[in-house]
């Protein structure tokens, strides 16, 4: 889950990382005016959205006095960036910058260790620096078993050839960032740019934090401190009401999974699984020219009621003509239970299973029992001799007929 800039900065601030003067988020132009008056000098106002390209879109503006700040805040608060409405506007003091740096901590999935990354060329895309100026970038992995020790950050910063007071100050900041990463289940903690002012002090000008979803249970305290709702998901785009209902179906019953519902604008509803099978089947539908109405994942032997509710939700979506029920060969999900759930869902939606279910392709455990049920209701099904790709093709063909 990505943090807003102001949340990232609040987190960094708790660990003593210096922030620009003022640094408060305002919800209205009047609030922005008050913050600007407190700062009593030139300010920068930044839209709080979970989307890149803020500067280009006009989400970052400057002001020299409180009235200008109110005006700028009004513009920013009304501006949607890539479909995201701003959560507020961050108002901060503006100061002349001598140099920009980059410091970040993330996971190295190959080394399976956290890695710190530092560069004395901040403010730009770090991957670009790595490609074009490899001498200006330094990396250091650190152990997850050994307590973090400051020398690790010192080695990182020294890696680009820095020394003197700058080395000491920057090492302290990098060490704090590594400890934040470690303590809060983060997948990314980044300060870019990290600015040095003319007086030799350093500030976090912009910060990014990503927290792993699976760590959120153990991070309730800090999330509360930062004012983040424990239920907030923050995908790349805000969830639709269809997706929210999908999540409710999954949460209502602990038996198995019928979730990760994502809305698309096609006419073929999908009840598919599991993780890898869903990806494979979604590709297959599209390859055949089909138009999925949704993505989802069922698995882990979901109960009859869970599959039933998911089916009803998908059928209730405007424009859905038929559904395709497909999975890879299943081991722990029972074919008969999925069959019962789907048929029940179709009937409870006031529809005929034989008409609404374009194809049922779930081979595997308890398949004979499942196939009997499907036969009884006249639903077209296939066993493992029909590939996932072919089954998807049959479903798409029925939509065109």
């Amino acid at each position: 889950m990505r943090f807003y800039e102001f949340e990232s900065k609040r987190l960094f601030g708790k660990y003593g990382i210096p922030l620009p003067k003022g640094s408060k988020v305002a919800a209205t132009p009047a609030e922005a005016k008050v913050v600007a008056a407190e700062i009593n000098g030139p300010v920068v106002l930044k839209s709080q959205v979970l989307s890149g390209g803020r500067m280009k879109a006009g989400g970052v503006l400057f002001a020299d006095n409180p009235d200008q700040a109110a005006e700028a805040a009004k513009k920013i608060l009304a501006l949607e960036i890539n479909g995201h409405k701003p959560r507020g506007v961050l108002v901060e003091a503006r100061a002349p910058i001598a140099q920009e740096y980059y410091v970040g901590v993330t996971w190295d999935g190959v080394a399976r260790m956290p890695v710190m990354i530092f560069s004395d060329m901040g403010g730009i895309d770090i991957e670009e620096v790595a490609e074009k100026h490899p001498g200006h970038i330094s990396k250091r992995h650190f152990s997850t078993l050994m307590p973090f020790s400051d020398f690790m950050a010192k080695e990182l910063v020294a890696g680009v050839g820095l020394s003197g007071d700058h080395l000491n100050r920057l090492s302290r900041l990098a060490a704090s960032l590594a400890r934040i990463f470690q303590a809060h289940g983060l997948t990314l903690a980044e300060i870019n740019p990290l600015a040095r002012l003319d007086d030799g002090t350093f500030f976090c000008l912009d910060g990014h934090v990503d927290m792993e979803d699976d760590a959120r249970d153990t991070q309730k305290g800090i999330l509360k401190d930062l004012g983040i709702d424990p239920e907030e998901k923050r995908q790349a785009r805000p969830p639709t009401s269809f997706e929210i209902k999908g999540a409710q179906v999954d949460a209502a019953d602990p038996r198995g999974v019928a979730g990760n519902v994502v809305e698309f604008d096609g006419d073929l509803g999908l009840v598919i699984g599991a993780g890898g099978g869903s990806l494979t089947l979604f590709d297959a539908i599209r390859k055949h020219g089909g138009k999925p109405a949704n993505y989802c994942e069922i698995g882990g032997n979901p109960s009859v009621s869970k599959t039933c509710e998911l089916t009803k939700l998908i059928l209730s979506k405007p424009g859905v003509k038929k559904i395709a029920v497909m999975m890879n060969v299943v081991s722990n999900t029972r074919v008969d239970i999925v069959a019962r759930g789907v048929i029940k869902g179709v009937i409870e939606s006031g529809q005929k299973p034989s008409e609404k279910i374009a194809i049922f392709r779930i081979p595997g455990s308890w398949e004979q029992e499942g196939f009997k049920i499907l036969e009884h209701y006249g639903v077209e099904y296939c066993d493992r001799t029909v590939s996932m790709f072919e089954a998807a093709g049959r479903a798409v063909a029925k939509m065109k007929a």
Partner: protein
Amino acid sequence: MSILITKDTTFIIQGITGREAVNMSRECLDYGSKIVGGVTPGRGGRDVYGIPVYDTVRQITAKTHVDGAVVAVPPAFTRDAVFEALEGGVKLIVIVTERIPRYEVAQMVELAKMRGARIIGPNCLGILSPGEAKMGGLGGRAVDAKKAFSKGYVGVMSRSGGMTTEMCNTLTAAGIGQSTAVSIGGDAIIGSTYADLMPLFEADQETKAIVIYCEPGGRMEAELAKYVVEQKSRLPIIAFMAGRFMDEMPGMRFGHAGTIVEGKADTTAEKIARLEAAGISIAERIEDIPGLVKKRLGMDGK
């Protein structure tokens, strides 16, 4: 032969009295696996289908040799269970539990490395060596596993547990058996990647080709491509890439926890290009896999 497990491999199941673990015990026993004990703290003295239950791992290792452990405890207790097995001298650990925080997984992997042990998973279905044994839920009930898996010469590795069975079933239907199938897990940080397991398949004389299932996200496929080129692997590899639609939707999460397109290198298009550059064949559809295996081994009569 096979890799990682044979019919003589002895293992324990941690969290054996949980509902899913009880089913898994039955499946593994029926398939011929040698389960020498189970661990559930506070349940010592009971048994699950004749498998004695103990309170600690050491109570079992003190009595008998234990090659491996399947860890099927809830996420909050997984790290502790894995540490217990590692410190008890167990060298092969299959973690089936999902939703373990990444930091904890990294800690387990780091300790395993220090102890000279191997972790498979987390968030995986385990290992199956056809005709030998299965360690984990892969393939389900023995009767179902026997339908989908057959003994042979293809090594299988997959980031998806379900797709492991689907691919093996397709190979079996085409008369191509498997040496060992490994469900390596769907998380961003896992104990054993494709490249980690390749040397084992290389060393296994029975294995003649490799089939893998790939997804968007992470650098595992790039790591494999690098391995294949640098080590001049003798094994032809056939890869199936799922989730191609995700290339158009960066930042959205589908499938497993490890599948999220964050940068250019995470896309399926980029992965396919890297794999192909390393001489790995890409199967457009699952049903194309058997033909590609035969073609790469010169068994297609051409």
